[in-house]
């Protein structure tokens, strides 16, 4: 079944922030891997919660508290459906970073012994490196890194060779934020499980670009950030298999995560509330629920097809400019076009592009090991979302040429 083509120009009307000029030029927003803009559906959901339903959740018998609880738990159910998982496997966190830290602390650390290993890959964001480093340092375990090719594709044979009886977890990204590589997560998870190794996937760059059936991926944990998914900042999701979540002790203690408390002993609530100590980001969760509903209506298949076509066209156009070197040329990519321009530092390109209304990310993208691998201090990264369209490629290329002329 092929999805109906996506009318990105019409959809742009749903995003108030896109209707502005920057330095007198129409905004061309190509920094979607950093964060996405929010559709009216999300802004309205946030507004309605704050203006009408504002209350705390899971307590209080009054009407507003009931409304807030229904909306909060309704968002959880909607997100579970979006990811094709069970509702009580959805833990609300601040973002993918906190989700990964939760697993590092509540799942991995109690299992780590000196000499054990945690396996990550060469293309991880700092968020999927540092939490494991901290866990390793605290326990005497070792961090191992599965290598990638010059194109930015994981070397699967090498990865498999690093899966040993000492390996206690494999953590990898679904889509690389710096390179755009789409990793064959289901295949890798099968490989890891054959060696008895649980798998965490950093999905921060994936769920907004591809239909993701988390249950079918066969992984153990999946973390994502709401603000990269057209939702609010400060909210994200950790999905975990209920068998794991049941076994895990709480990470943070407080209200809302308990069944009963005396000074002698506390009985904890079952998951997911066990991992949601304190008043959660209720508005954020509701906003994320609205974002997921918005994306479901448009259809991830249509979004994926639209962005694939756009990325291919942009890649051709940018690669045709003399002196451009693409960073990340995997066969399967999504959204991200990362590159350097000979003789012009990415930072200077970023400023020239901004003066032309074009917003891109320039820097190391919180992936310094990836930059080191390619021997560059930084790259220019254009990343596309559902509201980008073909006519935005030209201003990007024109501004790149202007930067080249300026620094020639």
């Amino acid at each position, binding site marked *: 079944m092929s999805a109906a083509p996506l009318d990105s120009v019409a959809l742009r009307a749903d995003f108030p922030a896109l209707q502005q000029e920057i330095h007198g030029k129409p905004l061309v927003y190509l920094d979607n891997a950093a964060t996405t803009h929010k559709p009216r559906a999300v802004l309205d959901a946030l507004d309605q919660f704050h203006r009408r339903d504002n209350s705390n959740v899971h307590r209080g018998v009054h009407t507003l508290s009931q409304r807030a609880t229904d909306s909060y738990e309704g968002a959880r159910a909607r997100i579970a459906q979006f990811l094709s998982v069970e509702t009580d496997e959805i833990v609300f966190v601040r973002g993918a970073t906190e989700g990964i830290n939760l697993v590092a602390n509540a799942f991995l650390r109690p299992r780590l012994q000196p000499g054990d290993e945690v396996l990550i890959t060469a293309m991880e964001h700092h968020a999927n490196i540092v939490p494991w480093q901290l866990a390793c340092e605290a326990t005497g375990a070792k961090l191992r890194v599965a290598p990638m090719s010059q194109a930015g594709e994981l070397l699967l044979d090498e990865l498999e060779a690093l899966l040993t009886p000492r390996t206690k977890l494999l953590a990898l990204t679904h889509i690389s934020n710096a390179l755009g590589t789409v990793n064959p997560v289901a295949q890798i998870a099968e490989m890891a499980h054959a060696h008895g190794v649980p798998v965490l996937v950093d999905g921060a760059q994936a769920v907004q670009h591809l239909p993701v059936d988390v249950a079918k991926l066969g992984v153990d944990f999946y973390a994502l950030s709401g603000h990269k998914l057209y939702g609010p900042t400060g909210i994200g999701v950790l999905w975990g298999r209920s068998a794991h979540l049941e076994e895990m002790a709480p990470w943070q203690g407080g209200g809302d995560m308990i069944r009963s408390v005396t000074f002698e002993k506390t009985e904890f609530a079952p998951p997911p509330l066990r991992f949601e100590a304190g008043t959660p980001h209720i508005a954020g969760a509701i906003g994320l629920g609205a974002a997921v509903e918005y994306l479901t209506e448009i259809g991830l298949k249509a979004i994926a097809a639209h962005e694939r076509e756009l990325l291919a066209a942009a890649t051709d156009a940018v690669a045709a400019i003399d002196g451009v070197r693409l960073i990340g040329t995997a066969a399967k990519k999504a959204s991200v076009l990362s590159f350097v321009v000979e003789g012009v*530092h990415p*930072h200077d390109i970023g400023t020239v592009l901004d003066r032309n209304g074009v917003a891109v990310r320039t*820097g190391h993208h919180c992936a310094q090991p990836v930059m080191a691998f390619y021997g560059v*201090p930084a790259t220019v990264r254009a990343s596309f979302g559902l509201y980008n369209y073909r006519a935005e490629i030209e201003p990007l290329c024109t501004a790149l040429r202007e930067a080249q002329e300026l620094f020639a």
Partner: protein
Amino acid sequence: MSLSELYQELILDHNRSPRNCGALEAPTHSATGHNPLCGDQLTLELRLAEGRVAEVAFDGSGCAISTASASLMTDAVKGLDEGELEALFAKFHALATGDGPPAGEMGKLGAFGGIRDYPTRVKCATLAWHTLRAALHGKQGATTE
């Protein structure tokens, strides 16, 4: 505010052919500076003689603003003692952040007067200066954070 006010000819020139770029034979002080925002790195060496900057050189990779700033700074600080250097840094910082002396009173360093309209780039312009001060104060490194 046009790009040519930020990227003045003097800045473009010093970016293309940076002065005092390389290493010293016998430095008395050195430090490495980082701009964690963009990953830029800069190593700065200097030789003090009788309390004054006798020689100074830098090396590293950076954007046009940070390279030109290191180049022009190393030209400007030769012969200065620590007090004069601190005073010059204070003036430069004020110029870059927009509450400083008119660019015309700053000699060649006045070329950075356009930075005030690009707040995200101020750290690029001051990286070399922070690194120089770290070297003088005997610190190993500097960061613009």
